[in-house]
């Protein structure tokens, strides 16, 4: 039968063939019970979690949980409305205040997800006739924001400063320009040379948006991200972030010093035409963000974990996405999807959950096992993880 679903046939076939070999479905895992930020019962097994974005382990922080419970009692389960109508409660203003303090910026706007933050800000700021110059490895939410806004979209090779410079130089005079970069690229866990790239963008008179989803709370002296770490946060026009990683709940945001920023609340469709976050969510986010301002020790421990895992996996003979650890993400490169899926399953049976990432999410058609560390992983757990990788890698024939 041919209908609108026929275009999915190749993917359906790929999945059917993979699962026919008895492979556990990597995209249908269920966590029956979550024990802590680093452990859960997955598909019936006690499992160490190494594939969440819970970098700072805030999901079970007692103060965070307490704030959420209190907000449920005081404000109810949901707002049933848009931010611009009946959906702005005291908690939404409080979390925006917390963000302004966290980043030291004048304005903060909270969206219902990080995806919507990119979708909304990009499509509203860069419209028809404007030019967006962006890294080819940008996240799906960035690409979708470009598409929604009708701007001319000009990609350049990943982290290639010269390619970016050339493309900016060819944009017709007078056209509006937005450069979009990420602090940490989540597939390989590599960072961008933001200092050099932002200088080039400014030389061409472009505005700069940096997605710091995977660096918040962890990278930079105050956990503000890669731009802070490289000393160029003041030159960033828009920082996009999320509550669903280090903050430990769900939601997205943009912070900015632009004097006219507040007008976006009225013209940004993914902000206006959706319900605002539930009171419990903004309360947990607010408490978590304020705690992340003083999380220096946790940051230091997370860096230790990242370095030890990177070194351990390198010594075991795995090929990694970066030659040195640059973030809390360590990507292990698999020879192909079949081997990657087999390795993923072998690790799961060892009691370890990692992310299996495959094209089109990955660059260069790679299959990756992405490990993301948590500040709550103990040094002992990291050693256990390295041992699991060694056994699974030998069993599958990758090392």
């Amino acid at each position, binding site marked *: 039968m041919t209908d609108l679903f026929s275009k999915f046939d190749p993917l359906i076939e790929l999945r059917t063939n993979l699962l026919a070999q008895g492979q556990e479905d990597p995209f249908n895992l269920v966590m029956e019970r979550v024990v802590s930020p680093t452990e859960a019962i997955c598909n019936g097994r006690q499992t160490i979690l190494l594939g969440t974005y819970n970098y700072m382990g805030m999901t079970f922080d007692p103060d965070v949980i307490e704030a959420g419970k209190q907000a449920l009692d005081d404000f109810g389960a949901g707002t049933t409305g848009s931010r611009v109508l009946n959906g702005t409660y005291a908690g939404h203003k409080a979390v925006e205040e917390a963000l302004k303090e966290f980043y030291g910026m004048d304005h903060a706007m909270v969206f219902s997800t990080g995806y919507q933050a990119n979708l909304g800000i990009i499509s509203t700021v860069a419209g028809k006739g404007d030019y967006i110059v962006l890294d080819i490895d940008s996240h799906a939410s960035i690409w979708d924001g470009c598409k929604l806004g009708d701007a001319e979209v*000009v990609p350049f090779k990943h982290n290639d400063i010269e390619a970016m410079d050339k493309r900016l130089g060819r944009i017709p005079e007078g056209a509006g320009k937005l450069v979009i970069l990420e602090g940490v690229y989540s597939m390989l866990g590599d960072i961008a040379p933001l200092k050099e790239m932002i200088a080039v963008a400014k030389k061409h008179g472009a505005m700069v948006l940096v997605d710091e989803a995977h660096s918040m709370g962890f990278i930079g002296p105050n956990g503000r991200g890669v731009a802070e770490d490289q000393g160029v946060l003041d030159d960033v026009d828009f920082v996009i972030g999320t509550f669903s990683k280090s903050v430990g709940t769900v939601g997205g945001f943009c912070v900015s010093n632009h004097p006219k920023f507040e007008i976006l609340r009225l013209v940004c469709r993914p902000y206006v035409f959706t319900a605002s976050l539930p009171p419990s969510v903004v309360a947990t986010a607010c408490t978590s963000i304020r705690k992340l301002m003083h999380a220096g020790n946790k940051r230091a421990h997370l860096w230790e974990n990242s370095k030890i895992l990177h070194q351990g996996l390198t010594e075991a003979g795995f090929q990694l996405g970066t030659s040195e650890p640059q973030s809390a993400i360590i990507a292990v490169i698999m020879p192909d999807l079949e081997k990657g899926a087999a390795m993923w399953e072998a690790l799961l049976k060892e009691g370890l959950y990692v992310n299996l990432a495959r094209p089109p999410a990955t660059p260069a058609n790679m299959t990756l096992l992405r490990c993301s560390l948590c500040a709550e992983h103990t040094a002992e757990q990291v050693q256990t993880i390295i041992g699991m990788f060694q056994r699974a890698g030998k069993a599958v024939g990758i090392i």
Partner: protein
Amino acid sequence: MDRAATAEKIAGIIEPFNKKGVEITDASTFAGDLEFDSLTVMDFVAAIEDEFDIIISMNQQAEIENYGQLIDAVVKLQG
């Protein structure tokens, strides 16, 4: 640069990307006949952009399906 001169330059640029040595006509499609994947498209477009000092935005790329359309687009973009 006229169409003939532009076509000649592009023929030189596409050669290393045409790994299977497909015979190229104006009707040859990039996705079908030449089997360009997204990475090849990016590198190939970058090579064309650098040679002619132009921008072929993703929006414009979406309109270019075959070799002839590419030559026409590059002629037009050079103004």
